[in-house]
């Protein structure tokens, strides 16, 4: 009787163990590391929308929000890798080194780093969206809609992503209106509604009648609404925050990519790569165009959108000169991805210096 009990106990343990192993092998767990709170209605919010798409596709997910880009990031990553996550998405530029460092220690866990360029280990992939394509569209609209010829631009931190956006925006605006001036103000925050509003107010007081932003909150479009100038939504459709001011928004759409990559881990087909999707792949989405825009501008924007999607038009088509007049991209050529990824110089026409 005892023997029977022990035997059945042992066999059930074995069974349980096999089941668990099978379950672990089958259930892919994905983790997301966020720089801001999921309630920012901007950058992190959109990543979290993507995470929810992964959940909807039947996978388990966890997330850690508000993780500083410091040694804390390493600690969080280690903890996630240690607690049975198969794939970890790190969704801010500053996680680049921590991601690669921790990836070395956990070769069996896949790491996906957003907006970075370092893939030092076979289990690190990078992905980003070609937001600059969206900014080409915004620049075209801004250059056409401005009456004062002064366009304000609230920037966050001097990293290639932001510089590229400023350049792409300015090139497009100059193309439709050679007289425009882009005034740039660095807020040195991704996310502080009060500060962002103050930066926008300063630009408006100095005559800017169109405001673009590369920070995350809706404070800037609200300030534009109050002051009666135009603005563009960032990361998500911000139209309802400022119906008169917002002409369109550039939305980040991460869901399809996240689902693909988590599925790839489940199927065993995950591989290291660098993904850089734009309007054509649906990672960058242009919201509805505001009816205040004249119909010929709307038609122009729609055509530009289609051409950017098909690859017929590239945001960085030569000749492009830097501020000192040196040729960056020759006539008829387009900037390659390597140049775009490390872009740390302003193009001609942008005022001021990049903060060092």
């Amino acid at each position, binding site marked *: 009787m005892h023997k029977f009990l022990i035997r059945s106990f042992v066999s059930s343990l074995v069974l349980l163990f096999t089941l668990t192993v099978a379950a672990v092998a089958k259930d892919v767990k994905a983790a997301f590391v966020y720089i*801001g*709170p*999921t*309630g*920012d*209605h*901007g950058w992190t*919010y959109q990543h979290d929308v993507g995470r929810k798409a992964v959940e909807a596709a039947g996978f388990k997910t966890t997330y850690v929000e*508000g993780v500083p880009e410091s040694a804390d990031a390493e600690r969080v990553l280690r903890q996630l890798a240690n607690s049975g996550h198969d794939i970890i998405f790190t969704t801010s530029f500053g996680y680049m080194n921590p991601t690669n460092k921790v990836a070395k220690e956990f070769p069996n866990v896949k790491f996906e780093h957003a907006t970075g360029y370092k893939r030092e280990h076979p289990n690190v992939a990078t992905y980003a969206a070609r937001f600059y394509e969206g900014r080409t569209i915004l620049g075209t609209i801004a250059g056409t809609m401005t009456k004062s010829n002064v366009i*304000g631009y609230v920037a966050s931190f001097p990293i290639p992503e932001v510089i590229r956006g400023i350049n792409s925006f300015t090139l497009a605006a100059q193309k439709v209106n050679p007289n425009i001036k882009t*005034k*740039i*103000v*660095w*807020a*040195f*925050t991704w*996310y*502080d*509604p*009060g*500060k*962002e*509003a*103050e*930066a926008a*107010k*300063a*630009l408006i*007081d*100095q005559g*800017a009648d169109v405001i673009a932003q590369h920070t995350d*909150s*809706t*404070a800037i479009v*609200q*300030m534009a609404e109050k002051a009666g100038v135009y603005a563009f939504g960032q990361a*998500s459709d911000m139209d*309802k*925050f*400022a119906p008169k001011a917002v002409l369109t928004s550039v939305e980040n759409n991460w869901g399809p990519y996240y689902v693909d990559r988590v599925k790839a881990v489940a199927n065993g087909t995950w591989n290291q790569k660098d993904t850089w999707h734009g309007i054509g792949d649906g990672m960058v989405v242009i919201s509805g165009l505001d009816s205040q825009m004249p119909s010929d501008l709307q038609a122009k924007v729609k055509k530009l959108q289609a051409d950017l999607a098909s690859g017929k038009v590239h945001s960085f088509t030569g000749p492009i000169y830097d501020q000192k007049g040196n040729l960056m991209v020759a006539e008829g050529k387009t900037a390659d991805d390597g140049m775009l990824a490390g872009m740390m110089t302003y193009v001609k026409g942008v*005022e*001021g*210096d990049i*903060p*060092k």
Partner: protein
Amino acid sequence: MIIDVNFVGLIIASIMASAVPLILASCGELITERSGVLNLGVEGMMIIGAISGFALMTVTGSLIIAVFGAMLAGVLISTIFAFLTQTLITNHVATGLALTIFGIGISAMIGKNFVGIPGKEFPVLFEGLKDTIPLLSPILFGHSIVFYFAFALPFITSYFLKKTKIGLIVRAVGDSPESASNQGINVRLVRYACILYGGAMCGLAGAYLSMIYTPQWIENMTGGRGWIALALVVFSTWNPIKILIGAMIFGGLTIIQFHMQAIGVRIPVQFLTALPYIVTIIVLVVISRDSRKIRLSTPSSLGKSFHKDN
């Protein structure tokens, strides 16, 4: 760039608007500290006020309910602090820090359902007079009632502390709770009242951010302003008028450095962004260097628990 008077007026008006939450929270905290209680929970009380105001405005549709609700929320959360530090005699510093962490956490939790909802327009006063006087019009007219209240508050606070009997009692309790108690003053009651008042002002400061300044709710939207308000109280040496000066310098430099960037002044941006913090401290230290006055205005029992009338 041509500098005309209206442009200067506009800049001063935006500086004043950005100083409002700092003035409200600092003047509230000043009363709390003058009674001898150090409440480091300013940031937490502000964020609770911000979410409460925004949530009540969205749910009830009434701005009045929302503003008073935010103040009440500040009072309620500071009641926790008062109960812990005054009744259970816990350490002020630790309890205050816990209050901030608690406030940020619970506001994020309540706020989950309010992200992505635009705020309502808050009515402004005297808008018709906005173009009447050059320079002064944008400064004086077209602001919310909270704005006017904030700029009256340092003077009211100063008058209250210096000229009224209750103000004298608050200072007595902060300077020497033992003597005050011997005089028959209920120290614990006075401190409770001062903590709750501080909570109400911090709640109002938060509501100003989420309902008037940037009408929306997003997590952590106070962005450290509670800590700056706390620093202002100390560096102003517990003087409400100097709080006003400090808040204006801080708000002013934040905004002027943006203007300098937009004009294209060739000063490193990192230095410009650090400027408000550096200059505010220097100026307040310089204007408060009279050690006799500091001794007079510093609440001697600040942060010390009082056991006697338990």
